[in-house]
């Protein structure tokens, strides 16, 4: 019983830190191909990584189409309705097998897991992805996940876009979008929501520390932003996010949403989000450099009132992406560095952290190569470093696993994967993840003899989109 209490406290900590145990997931959908009549390769190098044309398709609100439309116009010949004859529906199935380097303790702490597990499906998604109206498009994903065992809302991006000609050469695309995951609306694969790894095991543990903008608030917020892109090169966006909790009710009244202190990490007011990026193309090369960031003020909740002091997370990130797209060879190099400054007034007052101010930095660099969009692989280095804070990254009784003996969040490692695509919408992946440091240590990081390398895993994935 004592153990269960400890584990449940640990669970709350994980929620506080905003860490999902599942890896970030990202997708591409055949309904776009059906709508445009163009093959996957027009918009993707290999799904889900976008080409320049794919980025423009997204910036223009997914509205390019060649399907027969149900239409209506007014007397001024203005479109009143333009609806695809076929709904843009897609299905995605991910089936996987994970082999852990070392077994994990089970929920009671009394036993250990098997060293391998199967996800069938690990994830099953249905998408509405395509044009809704003349300048409006949607990417809406509903997902069943085997760890949750339920169907829930996944990445969502609904947008209006239009453009006008500045002169005979230059254009300005502008738009508004509503989404549920900071950076899911972004056009490049160097930012968190659509960044590498595009799929990963959900059967292993993740490190304690992660920045808020790096997926911690995914599907838990609603954001609205306005954006503009000049001449398909210079992109700017500003927006704001509010909490939009899913599957949560007030236990007393039954009302939906985060209306009381039982909920964790509720945004105070609206959190600003911003993004600028510049893309330069020459011959078969394409280079992007950019900045993105947000400032989240969160009530810790979890039993405390949703008022008074807040924890403030100021995230500022740089990113870049280089693509070479040849007929035979495709090479991509991208990366990001996210720096988070924390001012934890609420948690510090509640003695849940040792320091009032902490910081955290995550970097990721990924290189990907494909031969004829069929055979390829990626190698990615990731690292997180930050302030030592034994309150935030605590030690604990056995089993440690997701604790830190020295209060440090430092984690680093590599992901190496090989891919084979028999067809453009079908991917077979073998992925190996290894940690050289985990929650502050290489060996005995939890104080109970577990080494960082024990948290590595091998992951076989069959990924099908239709």
């Amino acid at each position, binding site marked *: 019983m004592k153990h269960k209490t400890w584990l449940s406290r640990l669970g709350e900590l994980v929620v506080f830190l905003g860490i999902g145990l599942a890896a970030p997931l990202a997708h591409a959908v055949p309904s776009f191909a059906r709508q445009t*009549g163009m093959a996957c390769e027009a918009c993707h190098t290999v799904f889900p990584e976008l080409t320049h044309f794919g980025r423009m398709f997204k910036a223009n609100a997914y509205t*390019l189409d060649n399907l027969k439309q149900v239409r209506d116009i007014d007397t001024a010949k203005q479109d009143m309705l333009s609806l695809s004859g076929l709904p843009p529906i897609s299905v995605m199935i991910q089936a996987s097998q994970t082999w852990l380097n070392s077994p994990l303790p089970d929920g009671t702490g009394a036993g250990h897991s098997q060293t391998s597990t199967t996800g069938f499906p690990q994830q099953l998604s249905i998408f509405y992805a395509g044009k809704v109206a003349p300048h409006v498009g949607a990417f809406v994903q509903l997902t069943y996940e085997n760890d949750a065992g339920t169907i829930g809302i996944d990445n969502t991006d609904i947008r209006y876009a239009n453009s006008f000609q500045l002169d005979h050469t230059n254009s300005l695309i502008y738009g508004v979008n509503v989404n549920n995951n900071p950076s899911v609306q972004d056009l490049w694969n160097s930012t968190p929501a659509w960044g590498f790894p595009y799929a990963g095991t959900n059967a292993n543990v993740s490190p304690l520390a992660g920045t808020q903008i790096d997926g911690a608030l995914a599907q838990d917020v609603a954001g609205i932003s306005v954006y503009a892109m000049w001449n398909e090169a210079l992109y700017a966006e500003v927006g704001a996010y509010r909490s939009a909790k899913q599957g949560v009710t007030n236990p007393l009244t039954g009302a939906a949403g985060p209306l009381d202190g039982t909920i964790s990490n509720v945004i105070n007011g609206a959190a600003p989000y911003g993004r600028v990026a510049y893309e330069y193309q020459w011959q078969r090369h394409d280079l992007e450099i950019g900045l993105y960031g947000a400032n989240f003020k969160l009530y810790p909740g979890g039993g405390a009132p949703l008022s008074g002091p807040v924890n403030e997370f100021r995230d500022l990130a740089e990113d870049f992406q280089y693509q070479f797209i040849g007929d035979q060879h495709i090479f991509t190099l991208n990366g990001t560095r996210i720096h988070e400054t924390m001012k934890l007034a609420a948690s510090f007052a509640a003695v849940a952290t040792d320091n009032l101010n902490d910081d955290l930095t995550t970097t990721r660099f990924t290189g990907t190569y494909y031969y004829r969009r069929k055979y390829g692989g990626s190698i990615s280095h990731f690292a997180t470093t930050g302030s030592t804070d034994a309150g935030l990254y605590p030690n604990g009784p056995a089993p440690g696993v997701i604790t830190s003996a020295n209060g440090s969040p430092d984690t680093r490692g590599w992901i190496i994967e090989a891919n084979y695509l028999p067809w453009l919408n079908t991917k077979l992946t073998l992925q190996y993840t290894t940690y050289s440091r985990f929650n502050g240590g290489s060996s005995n990081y939890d104080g109970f003899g577990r080494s960082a390398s024990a948290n590595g895993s091998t992951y076989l994935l069959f990924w099908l989109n239709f």
Partner: protein
Amino acid sequence: MKSNLMIILGSVLALALQSARAQEVDDSGARAAAAERIAVGTCAACHGPRGHSYSPKFPVLAGQHATYLVTQLQGFRAQTRGDPDALGYMWGMAAPLDDSMITGLADYYAAQVPRHGPAGNPALLARGKSIYENGDAAQGVPPCAACHGADAAGTDTYPRLAGQHVQYLVKQLRSFQNNMRNVAVMHGVARGLQVADVEAVATYLQSLGP
């Protein structure tokens, strides 16, 4: 009375003709504006600003002859041009275009100013120039200049090749050779070209321009 009637009828006819001409001008102006909007807003993502594509995967369209562009767009729309990039990209892009828009887009790109591309290896250029101007009787290759013109600027019937990307030209010549792009004349012309000569003639053509 009769002559008055004739005058009135004549005036009405003149007005009607004038109005029809104005309508044509309006239609043509509106078509040009709509085509430019699509060219700048959609086609430019691959074919570049004013038809000067960055990536050699996509052909340069600036200065290409309108008749050739109309034929190709109609071929994409009818799904009769069957080389791989036609299937992957242009069948979808051309599907919603009506004849008027095809004409508008062809006119837009024909009106853009072509440029010459970068020069390549001198030995390749010399070999390419020789094949282009004189053909290679041993390989059964006639001179390209006979149809495409001495400066490769093309005609109403044959496309401009000057300034086109090397990789695009190579891919097209191979598509003619293996009939993925099924054009009988070009299959016959290109059939005998050796790999190195395909590269040479494409390199020479890229270097040409106004």
